[in-house]
């Protein structure tokens, strides 16, 4: 193998040699952006498999306790689930519009869109809070905390298992929403300071991807828990 060298000082692709966000080990900003994106997608793939494990568990337990799961699911309120779906889909749209605004140098719009997104996230959590407290009152809780009375099939653990999964999956999803609110707030603040523009908006883009994934998971949670009987 033989090698030659390239003089970095005169790199023809170094579009933004002085950009403060440019990290030393990347040659160009574009390379840096693409790399971040690959990293983010890989992270999202791990999220898919993390949640996926729960989906597989849910599916197998549903096969084991078909009647109990069917009956337990009647305790969930379809309208609330649907409302939350609409809220999240809408927030996904405001998010993508936010990314577009950042890319087209519209600072004000970016902040507004992000604020609406955060608002939607809060509404979502509010509805979930309402649903959770309802469940807690009725004793529809996971595992050995399950105290609900009046189930059709006596002497079975299936109901408690259903609510274990309900709380684990919506709970993990809820944690992701909470983290998302933090991230959205963080880029809103930075956006407000004018840190993003058409040549540097990586964080907005990546948070956007994260937010869409949270939405995407809900798209499956909703029919699985609220609709299928």
């Amino acid at each position: 193998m033989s090698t030659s060298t390239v003089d970095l000082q005169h790199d023809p692709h170094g579009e933004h040699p002085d950009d403060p966000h440019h990290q030393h080990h990347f040659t160009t900003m574009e390379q840096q952006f693409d790399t971040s994106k690959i990293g983010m997608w890989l992270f999202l793939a791990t999220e898919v498999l993390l949640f996926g494990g729960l989906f597989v568990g849910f599916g197998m337990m549903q096969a084991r306790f078909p009647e109990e799961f069917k009956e337990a699911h009647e305790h969930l309120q379809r309208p609330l689930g649907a409302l939350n779906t609409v809220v999240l889909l809408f927030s996904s749209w405001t998010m993508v519009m936010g990314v577009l605004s950042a890319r087209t140098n519209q600072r004000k719009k970016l902040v507004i869109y992000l604020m609406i997104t955060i608002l939607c996230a809060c509404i979502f959590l509010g509805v979930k809070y309402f649903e959770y407290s309802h469940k807690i009152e009725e004793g529809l809780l996971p595992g050995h905390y399950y105290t609900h009375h009046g189930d059709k099939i006596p002497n079975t653990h299936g109901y408690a298992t259903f609510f274990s999964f309900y709380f684990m999956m919506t709970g993990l999803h809820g944690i992701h929403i909470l983290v998302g609110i933090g991230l959205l707030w963080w880029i809103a603040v930075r956006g407000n300071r004018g840190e993003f523009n058409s040549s540097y908006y990586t964080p907005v883009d990546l948070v956007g991807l994260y937010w869409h994934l949270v939405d995407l998971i809900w798209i499956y949670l909703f029919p699985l828990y609220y609709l299928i009987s």
Partner: protein
Amino acid sequence: MSEHTHNPKAEAALYLKTLIALLILTGITVGASYIHFGSGAANVVVALTIATIKATLVALIFMHLLHDKPVNGLIAAAGFVFLGLFLMFTLIDFDSRQDYQPRNMPAVVAPPTSTAPAPAAEHK
């Protein structure tokens, strides 16, 4: 950066259309859940198909996979494909287990004195 070359107005319009499509699909899936398609399995298939269409829309348009570098799409697809493998093989096992018991184990385990529950009935 290079992947977004078309104009912002058209892009915004596309996003709006996508949102509307997603909302309509949500309506359909909620509506469909009140109809009974013969068997329980059919309802599951309908609901999950609609969910998959919605998820695809989000991934392709909101998450830009349609115009992004192919490697990102590949990574996303890999996530779902390997999840699918996990689900598929586990299902194969569960589906074909003969003495798979849908009920839970009796809460009180029989002490060895009492004759053990005769399992012969469950074994062909």
